[in-house]
């Protein structure tokens, strides 16, 4: 009952704060932005998707006039590249990086092929991929055509592996916005854990605002005079914040579902996020106990979030086999593993334990400091 009164007041404080609501809205923009960026960059770097979306035509490749009608031109055309012709190689080379992404030409009398390509172009990966495929075909065809082989044989030699794809669970297929490996990797490997943790970055700010604010306005003294124990006061302060963050994370999971990036094992993820949140908020409480003013709290929280970003997101971009045992217990790595597939390995839950332990330790420490007279201004 007493706790409920505090809880209600704190919840009301959060919901009536225009800035927090604004930040929630900004998060929404960040999510949509990241999603859009992931889609565009997937399309731009994936030759098949670029074909599908009709973007290949924008990749312009130059050829000297004399190659018009040659088998080389034919194989480049087969890759859906837009070709431009130049009177000679020199003029063509000048236009690489301006009019065209690359220039393909015959460099000597033995028929060797020169390829000048501009690295700085946005479409560089796709252009390089397509041109190389075309040149490989051209090379192979040059060799094979010199022997008397049937087209069927040539075809077999060119495509020696006949991969037959068997789709399992096709009816319950995961509805993906883009069937691209780049998209799946960047979404599940970075953006999903990033989005799910965003609300907790906000949470540590809210908690210092709320505690340090009361400290500054000296209302904390009055609150502490009420017959609530220290842990109860902390619980009443942080539970609404924790709940607010978890609800946001839940909402973002739903949003991702509608954006066709289904996040799997959401309930278990929520359990993990609960503990991660407890850690974040515990740090916020600790900071509030150690500082005297909102200004100091803001600087400290900024630094905390900086370090948290490193600890949580660096492991996603690192590849150190020796440390994999430790890295596997980092919450973001667990989120990646749990969210990216419908199946669940019960052993993963064991990997929660370090996070749970660390969070509870931070939280216990914050309660300890809370009792140590850090809560009021003397």
């Amino acid at each position, binding site marked *: 009952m007493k706790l409920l009164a505090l809880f209600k007041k704190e919840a009301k404080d959060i919901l009536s704060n225009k800035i927090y609501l604004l930040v929630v809205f900004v998060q929404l923009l960040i999510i949509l932005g990241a999603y859009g960026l992931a889609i565009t960059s997937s399309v731009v770097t994936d030759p098949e998707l670029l074909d599908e979306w009709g973007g290949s035509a924008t990749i312009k490749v130059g050829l000297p006039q004399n190659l018009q009608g040659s088998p080389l031109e034919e194989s480049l055309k087969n890759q859906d590249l837009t070709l431009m012709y130049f009177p000679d190689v020199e003029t063509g080379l000048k236009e690489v990086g301006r009019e065209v992404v690359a220039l393909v030409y015959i460099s000597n009398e033995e028929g060797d092929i020169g390829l000048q390509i501009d690295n700085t172009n946005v479409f560089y990966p796709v252009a390089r991929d397509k041109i190389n495929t075309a040149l490989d075909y051209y090379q192979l065809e040059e060799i094979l055509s010199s022997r008397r082989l049937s087209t069927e044989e040539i075809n077999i030699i060119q495509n020696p592996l006949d991969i037959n794809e068997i789709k399992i669970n096709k009816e319950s297929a995961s509805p993906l916005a883009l069937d691209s490996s780049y998209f799946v990797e960047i979404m599940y490997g970075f953006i999903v854990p990033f989005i799910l943790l965003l609300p907790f970055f906000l949470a540590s700010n809210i908690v210092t605002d709320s505690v340090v604010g009361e400290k500054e306005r000296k209302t904390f003294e009055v609150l502490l005079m009420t017959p609530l124990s220290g842990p109860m006061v902390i619980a009443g302060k942080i539970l609404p914040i924790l709940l607010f963050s978890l609800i946001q994370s839940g909402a973002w999971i739903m949003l991702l579902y509608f954006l066709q990036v289904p996040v799997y094992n959401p309930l278990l993820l929520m359990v993990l996020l609960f503990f991660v949140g407890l850690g974040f908020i515990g740090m916020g409480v600790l900071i509030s106990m150690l500082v005297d003013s909102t200004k100091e709290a803001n600087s400290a929280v900024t630094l905390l979030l900086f370090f948290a970003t490193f600890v949580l997101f660096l492991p996603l*971009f690192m590849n150190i086999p020796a440390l994999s045992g430790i890295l596997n217990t980092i919450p973001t790595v667990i989120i990646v593993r749990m969210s990216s597939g419908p199946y669940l390995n019960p052993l993963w839950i064991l990997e929660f334990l370090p996070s749970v332990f660390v969070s509870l330790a931070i939280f216990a420490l914050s309660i300890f400091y809370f009792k140590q007279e850090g809560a009021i201004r003397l």
Partner: protein
Amino acid sequence: MSSWTITKWELKNTLHNRKFILIFFLQLVVLLMMVLFFSSFMEGIESEEGISLTPSLNQFASLDIYDPQNILINQLNPEILEINSNKIDIALNRLEGGDVTGVLILPSSDDFNLEEIKPVPVNLYIDYEDPKRSVIKDEVSTAQNKASSLISERWINDLTPQQEVSQPQIQEETQGEALPLQLINKVMTAVLLFLPLFLFGNLIVDSIVGEKERKTGEILIAMPLSRSNIILGKSMAVIITMALQVALWMVLMILAGYSIENPGLVYLIVVTTALPIVGLTSIIAAFSKNYKEAGIGITFAYVAIIGFLIVPALAYISQQGRYVSASTMTLAIKVFSGEPLSPGDIIVPFTSLLLISLISYYISIWLFKRDDIVFGPRPGILRLLFEFATLNKVVNYFKK
């Protein structure tokens, strides 16, 4: 002269504040971490064949394979795929149970002889319920390409073992630094250089809003100082602090191996950029009633300023420097990469810098001179704009 007294005391206060010193050096530690992170990141993406910015997800997707003739297994990328060799029935069972996302089955030597020129039948089972199916498909197709060229070559050699194969060679030449590398190298260096300018907004807020909140501003204003001296003195102190941090920052970056040409000139450019930033911050500080308001205002203002600095820099990089530098950040990039400068490169950013500085200090002094801003009740923004444009005088004139 009186401005300098204020500057001196503000600086003294700042540097005597132990918490400030702590934060100051923590920022350097953070920078060091960022520098280390980016250099290891750069090594990571430069060493691999292509350049991609995807996270290095160790064994992100799992694939079971039955490949007794080792046709494909060695071509698969073990960094991305968790590959397990298993018997067909075990592998398919694991797929059924959701332990793996895909199963790849190749023929054994009993069923298929690689010497014959015949397509190798490969079965790829993929669990479509799992979104990582795309990764499996993509990785298998990459491996397929690599294996195919090996097999084709072998077959061609088998067909004509003695015959000299004359094959046209391909000479590939690339020009320019790759886009992602440029983004990281140049833009990141520039962002790191300009970062300190955005870390000390709280100092000016503290020295202006703080005086309002603690009501010490009254004492300051009561002293024989003009209010413009107060604003200028306080701003100067913050600019000096920033300059100090930028200097340390640059030394650290150069020690960490960042290539910065013309460091003196770069330093000058960065520190001059502090002028308008501090000016805009002091407008917000002069207007705000409390820390919270100032905090929000500054967040939005800094996002806008960063945009103003960084967007021309990005545009410059994607256009390969065909246009003159529109922001000082672009200019800094040009200078530290040792590119030639045109007069426009210097005139355009510095003119805008000067203009913004003058206007912003004029506004903040104008605001700070108004009693209703300093002591309240504060007029609304619209009314202030109205008065700033001296439209009220026009209205009053007609009223008469």
